[in-house]
């Protein structure tokens, strides 16, 4: 039993990393991000004065919880690489006192204490870091049991779970407001908006091929962009029509994939596993008939990390996707 269970864990983690969440009420951070003129140019956005945060402040996180921030947080624990990158993007890197063992960006976070090891949150280490703010990720990435335990311990927890490029901007705005770093957040959001706008311009009018982004294939289970996930939204912005999996588990049945008949297959998992190539994909039973395989549009994606991590480097991920889907629009 235990062994069987353990074998399922890696795909599960991968699925949760990438997972989209239930469709439903728009996340509050979208509302927050609308305060920033969306789609405006960088200079335009930074011209809008961003008010300083007056503490205590009540913010609404992506889990729909009203979180009271008593004072400007000085000790921050981040339970996901994406939330680490968001904190650093608004200039709070020096305030981080705990991160995960997956954290690799910016380089300076590598030396910080690890409070999440092998996707297991070590609550004792979180408490020992004495944080006045904990940044967590939604859709079960930070398990609910851990979230309620952190709540019970009296810690201030902000759950981030963006479901589109816009919502990544919304989360950056939310963290900026929480950390009294509104101006830095506004600059980041404007930068992302600019990148989105320029990619949209570049692919405007082009055909929109059906794109399957392979996050991973584990024991016959195929994981891709979940319906209504930020990854699906990135593929759309990049001029593709995403083939999506289940909204929460991001898994997709092979039959459904064959029926969807993708015209482009992007191999995110090839970034970590050299045995996953266009040739080995073509040799998989049932895969050879797809248009993408027949036309030779199966590409490894060495930039998977920035494509699947919902943080400020989403701009790089978006560009990598757009170049892969529409090489002709990028001088390729």
């Amino acid at each position, binding site marked *: *039993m*235990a062994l069987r*269970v353990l074998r*399922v*864990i890696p795909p*599960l983690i991968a699925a*949760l990393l990438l*997972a989209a*969440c239930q469709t439903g009420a728009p996340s509050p951070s979208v509302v927050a991000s609308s305060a920033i003129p969306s789609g405006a140019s960088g200079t335009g956005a930074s011209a809008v004065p961003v008010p300083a945060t007056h503490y205590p402040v009540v913010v609404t996180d992506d*889990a729909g*919880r009203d979180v009271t921030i008593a004072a400007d947080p000085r000790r921050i624990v981040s339970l996901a690489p994406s939330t680490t990158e968001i904190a650093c993007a608004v200039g709070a890197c020096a305030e981080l006192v705990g991160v995960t063992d997956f954290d690799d960006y910016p380089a300076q976070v590598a030396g910080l204490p690890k409070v999440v*090891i*092998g996707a*297991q*949150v*070590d*609550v*004792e*280490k979180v*408490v*020992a870091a*004495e944080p006045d703010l904990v940044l967590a990720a939604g*859709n*079960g990435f930070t*398990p*609910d*049991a851990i*979230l*309620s*335990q952190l*709540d*019970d*311990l009296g810690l201030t927890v902000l759950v981030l779970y963006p479901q589109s490029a816009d919502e990544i901007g919304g989360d950056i705005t939310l963290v900026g407001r929480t950390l009294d770093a509104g101006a830095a957040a506004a600059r980041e959001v404007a930068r992302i908006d600019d990148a989105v706008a320029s990619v949209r311009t570049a692919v405007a009018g082009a055909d929109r091929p059906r794109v399957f982004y392979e996050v991973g294939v584990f024991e016959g289970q195929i994981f891709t962009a979940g319906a209504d996930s930020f990854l699906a939204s990135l593929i759309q912005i990049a001029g593709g029509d995403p083939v999506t999996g*289940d*909204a*929460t*588990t991001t898994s997709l049945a092979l039959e459904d994939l064959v029926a969807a008949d993708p015209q482009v297959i992007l191999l995110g998992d090839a970034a970590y596993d050299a045995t996953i190539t266009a040739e080995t994909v073509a040799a998989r039973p049932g895969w050879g008939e797809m248009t993408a395989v027949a036309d030779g549009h199966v590409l490894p994606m060495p930039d998977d990390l920035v494509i699947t991590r919902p943080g400020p480097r989403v701009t790089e991920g978006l560009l990598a996707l757009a170049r892969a889907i529409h090489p002709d629009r990028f001088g390729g």
Partner: protein
Amino acid sequence: MRAAGTLPATARIGALVGGPSLARAAIVLGAGVLLVIVAVVVGVGVGTSGLAGPLDAAGILAHRIGLAVPVSWSPGAEQIVWELRLPRAVTALVVGGGLATAGVVFQALLRNPLADPYVIGTAAGASLGAVAGLMVPTLVPALALGAGTAWWGIGLAQVLAFAGGLGTMLVVYGVARTGGRVPVVTLLLVGYAISSVLAAATALLMFFAGNRLGAIFGWLMGSLGGATWTDLALATPLVAAAAAVILVRWRRLNLLLLGDGPAAHLGLDVEREKLILTVLATLATSAAVAVAGTIGFVGLVVPHLLRLVLGPDHRLLLPTSFLGGAALLALADTGARLAGGVPVGVVTALLGAPFFLVLLRRTRAIGA
């Protein structure tokens, strides 16, 4: 167990209904209590953060029980010791003790060496209940009530796990009863069949679990990571009461070892006693499972291990199994914590099984 096969029946009965010498019992029980104390001291004194060492932990505990100790630790250390490590260690004692006691009862009742606390469907029923409870917030958002799934600190999954464990036992027992009797083999087979149905239902729910799957796997593997004083306050009275009532029935358990027929000839109301003991053991098991998930191994091997060392007399086997199960799970959980949160059942099996095998071979060698 060593003697059981060789002595004549009359001597066997004498050995079983009599008792161990007081001195030997005192030494063995004293050693058990000492082991439990060591397990708690280690569990509270070490951790992954290094913020609260054994000395700090001792000071914090003394401070908490009202002794005038100079405070030399940080608030974080106090929180770690009092709200994380101590409830976890004490929960390990209650769960480990409860499971080992239930294991003793089922092994005696069913006269089956593979019997464990989960053998008649308790685990399957509790799992289905817990999985259903974990999924309710997904299926019926109105019941989620805020951030967690807790009502007054009690998780819905815990309530349903407890009810599922107890309810399954009652159903299994009812189905297995024929003509006012519950034959042991029928009980085992019905337990197996109903467990299979419930396991299939659990698997079906998990298929639709979506992003709750991580929480479900965590529960099925068993963990003391979420232990709180509230959970403990609910589980402890149930486990303690069940274990105490089982303990005072040690003589009847000894009689049941002889078989249903001989026990009845010696004046025991066998069917009534089987039902009472099954309900008591299931109560302890369900309460343990509700707070810690399905932790395996402890309930199977601790009774065997102590039976190999001490013999089959339940007067000594029951309390030592409680203490042994408690200490083993507390020590294993400390190991699991230090190893970065691996499932505690993995640690108990990895450390306990080889030890058990060595003991089994040595004892068998002596017997031959």
